[in-house]
């Protein structure tokens, strides 16, 4: 992709996110224009008050203004009724305040809508990206893209863009008013402005590098503390407190010295900016006085001119900073684009449903992970409808991969054989339908940081507590849950209790049981459960199995021996198939393991 199309893509993405937010931004910019206009009016009222009311100078304003003044009875009338002008100031202020408020609220509405759209779209996209994508990308990096990059983009649009709009409107309007009052003085006021903008732009660009160095070193300091805390056992056990302290002190000092340097540049910038601004004002004061003395300017004009100038100075100083920060946005857009352009999981056209209670057949399945040798080689077997199939295999034998393929976590390539359910190739079955009909307990189950009951009933929000408890009871979990003070309302995870490995596995089993799927898969799901509970759970499960097609993966004979059929998987190939009785004396791997596991007593003690 070349640079041009990339740029266009990025712009398209920004507009895509802006959907629903654009109207808010338009309103906010319009109100900010109105508010800038209101800002222009009160100095004019003051000017009239000074020149025409207090000082009695002859008035020469644009026709509509004169018409309003004359409607009151000319400036003479205001002499005795100056409160009307004061009221005018308040009225203008009210307009200004209302428009400013509208600007602020609508700008936030726009910004927040934009952020919401971005977050929602990103989250939805991330949830639907293929599992292989998740394996390739680091969690921390994705989160960064979803948080700070989004913030950068929001700031770009709702602060920098609208801010620059505001400043430009302000600048144009005040310049118009200033020029109509006195072009020469305006020139004097304007000359330093480009200097201020350019200086501030360059300063912020260079100081950003300094900030970055500081940030990096803060990161180092933070990592140092992190290491000291996570390694507290090592530190104490080796008695290295002093070493740690020395290391920290040195870096702490260095990091601080970096900031002291930054403080000098910042102070230099601020004070020189202040000086520049003060000199500009001085120039206007002196020149203004000169013009007044010469008679080409009235005192009221002079006073209001200074007001306009004051209004300009701050925005001008900010302009440089804003422009210098704009470049950050394009990097962020690119980083967000990376997620948005990744392709979601997709079904084949015409994919539909199938009878999920039928046989599950693996035919010549061959599969390799990206850049890896084949993990499955020509694997064929059938899990018969309503029966229990056991899979025995060691680490790296590909047994979990088989299940990932069945659940379409990875796509089986065209030439990699086929998996069928009820005679239909799973490539022709809708992914969500397929997954909703397969209950799977993973080896290392993941629980969400919600309550236990929410976790168990996660697939169906309308589930009753009775159903949830029943599932928990079958998973031998009910007693443990009732032991928590908050029972089923106990939160798990980060902000709640930490469950043991065995409890997590049992929660996952209960979660699967509530799904009541025609296919159930237990992938080494009882490894962290003690023998006693293991047996209990298996017994309880049997009553659920009924018409269900079950696949149990394990390397424990006791877990597998009741299966109707057992497949022994060795290094990605099927080594043996048969029932426990057929295999136990067949002299293959299964019988070796069977012997080793049953003849334990004597051997272990020796």
């Amino acid at each position: 992709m070349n640079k041009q199309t990339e740029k266009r893509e990025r712009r398209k993405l920004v507009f895509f996110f802006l959907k629903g937010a654009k109207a808010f931004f338009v309103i906010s910019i319009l109100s900010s224009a109105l508010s800038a206009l209101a800002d222009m009016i009160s100095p004019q009222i003051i000017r009239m008050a000074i020149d025409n009311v207090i000082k009695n100078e002859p008035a020469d304003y644009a026709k509509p203004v004169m018409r309003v003044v004359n409607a009151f009875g000319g400036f003479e009338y205001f002499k005795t009724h100056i409160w009307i002008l004061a009221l005018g100031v308040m009225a203008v202020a009210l307009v200004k305040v209302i428009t400013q408020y509208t600007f602020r609220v609508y700008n936030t509405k726009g910004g927040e809508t934009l952020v919401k759209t971005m977050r929602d779209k990103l989250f939805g996209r991330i949830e639907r990206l293929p599992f292989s994508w998740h394996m390739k990308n680091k969690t921390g990096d994705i989160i960064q893209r979803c948080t700070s990059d989004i913030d950068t983009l929001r700031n770009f649009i709702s602060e920098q863009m609208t801010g620059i709009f505001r400043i430009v409107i302000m600048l144009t309007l005040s310049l118009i008013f200033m020029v109509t009052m006195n072009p020469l003085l305006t020139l004097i006021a304007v000359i330093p402005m480009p200097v201020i903008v350019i200086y501030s732009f360059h300063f912020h660009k260079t100081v950003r590098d300094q900030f970055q160095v500081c940030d990096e070193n803060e990161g180092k300091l933070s990592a140092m503390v992190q290491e000291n805390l996570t390694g507290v056992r090592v530190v104490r056990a080796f008695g290295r407190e002093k070493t740690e302290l020395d290391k920290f002190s040195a870096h702490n000092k260095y990091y601080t010295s970096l900031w002291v340097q930054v403080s000098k540049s910042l102070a230099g910038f601020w004070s020189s900016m202040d000086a520049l601004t003060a000199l500009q004002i001085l120039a206007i004061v002196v020149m203004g006085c000169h013009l007044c003395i010469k008679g080409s300017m009235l005192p009221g004009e002079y006073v209001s001119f200074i007001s306009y100038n004051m209004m300009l100075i701050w925005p001008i100083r900010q302009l440089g900073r804003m422009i210098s920060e704009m470049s950050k946005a394009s990097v962020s857009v690119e980083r967000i684009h990376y997620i948005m352009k990744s392709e979601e999981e997709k079904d084949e056209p015409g994919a539909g449903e199938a009878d999920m209670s039928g046989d599950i057949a693996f035919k010549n399945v061959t599969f390799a992970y990206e850049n890896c040798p084949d993990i499955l080689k020509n694997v064929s077997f059938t899990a018969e409808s309503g029966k229990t199939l056991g899979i025995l295999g060691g680490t790296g034998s590909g047994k979990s991969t088989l299940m990932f393929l069945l659940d379409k976590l990875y796509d089986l390539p065209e030439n990699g054989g086929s998996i069928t359910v009820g005679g239909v190739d799973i490539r022709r079955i809708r992914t969500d339908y397929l997954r909703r009909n397969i209950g799977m307990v993973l080896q290392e189950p993941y629980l969400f940081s919600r309550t236990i009951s929410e976790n168990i009933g996660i697939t169906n929000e309308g589930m009753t507590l009775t159903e949830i408890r029943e599932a928990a009871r079958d998973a031998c979990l009910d007693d443990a849950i009732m032991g928590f003070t908050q029972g089923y309302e106990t939160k798990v995870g980060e902000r709640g209790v930490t469950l043991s490995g065995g409890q997590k596995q049992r929660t996952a089993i209960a979660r699967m049981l509530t799904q009541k799927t025609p296919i159930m898969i237990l992938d080494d799901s009882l490894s962290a459960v003690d023998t006693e509970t293991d047996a209990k759970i298996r017994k309880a499960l049997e009553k659920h199995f009924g018409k269900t097609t079950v696949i149990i993966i394990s390397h424990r004979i006791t877990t597998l021996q009741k299966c109707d059929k057992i497949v022994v998987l060795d290094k990605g190939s099927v080594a043996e198939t048969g029932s426990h009785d057929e295999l136990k004396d067949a002299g293959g791997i299964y019988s070796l393991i069977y012997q080793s596991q049953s003849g334990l007593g004597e051997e272990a003690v020796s």
Partner: protein
Amino acid sequence: MTQENKTRTKLRFFGIGKILPFMKTFKNLIILMAVLGLITSLIDVAITLFQRYALNNFVEKGSFAGRLPMYLIVYVGAIVVQTLATYFSCSRAMTVEVSMNRDLRQAAFTHLQTLSFSYFNQNSVGYIHARVLSDTSRIGSLASWTVMDGVWHTSYLVFAAGVMLAINWKLALMVMAIVPLVAVLFSVFQKKLIRANREIREINSNITSNFNEGITGAKTVKTLAIESSMEKRFVDETAKMRKRSVEASRIRGLFAATMNLASSAALAIVLWKNDLISSEEVGTFSLFMSYAQGMMEPIRWLIDAISDLITTQVNIERFTNLLAVRSDVIDSPEVIEKDGDSFEPKKENWEPLKGDIKFDDVSFVYPDGEEEVLSHFSMTIPYGSNIAIVGETGAGKSTLVNLVCRFYEPTQGRVLIDGRDARERSQLWLHSHIGYVLQNPHLFSGTVRENLLYGNPDATPEQIERAVKLVSADEVVARLEKGLDTDVGEGGDLLSTGEKQLISFARAILADPRILILDEATASVDTITEQKIQAAIDEVIKGRTSIVIAHRLSTIRHADCILAVRDGKIVEQGTHKELIAKKGYYYDMYTRQYEDEEAAKILSSV
């Protein structure tokens, strides 16, 4: 429940008293800043007076009357003084800020090195990390910017009020009547804003953890096919975020509106009551307008400052509470007198350590627990023997090790090292004779060599080489690009877990410990590495007292004594043979693991 919450107390005067000792270092600079703040506000007030002078004298009288040069000199002089004052006050303020933060961090970090394990077990790494780095980072600005800006804003208010009163006390009083009204309104908004911001922060962190869950739980989300419900939950949260943010912007908008209205009201009052000023004095008129508007900013600042102080008070509280935590393992003054403390040891007075350990009627309750995990436990571990502790994850296997290492002190009874109460010698003395290898090997950022030297800073290159060879870490080192001088990355993350483990083993051996603790040292490595490590273990425990917390039971069959731990308590104790014969808890665990391991062995050997 953390220890700090228990000791929480309300601090007076925003807790400033607590950080006075830290401010003392910068006393002179802080006074300088206050003086500079005073000078700048004086000049700011004066410049308005200069402008009045120009209007009242030059413009009104229609001539500079030869006073322009003098006027320029004074004005420019003021700008120069102002610029210098701004430069010094800003750079000094920032210097004080970062330097004070540095000292606070230093104090917190130093204090942490003296704390005992109970603190680290009760508070998460993230929590402590935030105390050291983020709380401290918010306190420094209090002593610098808040002081300086406080002086500036207060004195500006006072000076401006003073000047106005001196010039025209009637008009001054009228203008200032607005102040209390504005102040009240501001504080009402401020309170609402604080509440809104707190809520927004909370929702924001919810959103981040939702992202986190959606990413780390991706596999589970897919297998359960709950993408849509996850998305719905997420969208609800972001909708809440948008709503609250817009609400907050409304409050902020009202805030700004009040401020604008108030300053326009002040302006209107001046205009309305202009007859209090002679029509000859346009300068005075404009001065009142400037001050009337300029006074709003200091008021806003003061109210902001109060809410900042309230926030900072929380930081100060947390910081001082950290410093107030006392270690529950403390060396007596006599011991420190003889052996020195952790930072300044008196190694010349240290006695040799042989390695006899004896538990003498020890009872123990964890500081944050209620249950007695050891009661009247007695056991002798003669020098050179090998003890194994087994049990499930989270069963409390580390308790004995914690007591031997003096990470905790017994609640009752004594732990004897070489026949003497451990408390009779310093912690560092004991720790210098302990070698510790953890399940999750912890390395520090730096090179391999630096990490090895952690075990013994005085080790010679030959000693390093020997230690590395002894544990077969030489193969790891040989593979690394720069050998021993290869950087291991943050937390050693550039190495694999197995590699890290071997390095951490070599580190322990370099310490030439009399007591060696292996805390599930082989749990997270692959079989080949495990065999290597096992061979190394057999080698290095010779002649040392060793305590092995084991995950794989097959590795500790030859231990002199095995302790089986369940639910925090020692349930069985004896040799492997004795425990197998007993057919109790150990037998059960062993059987299960044996099955798994046998199966794995067969599956990987065929």
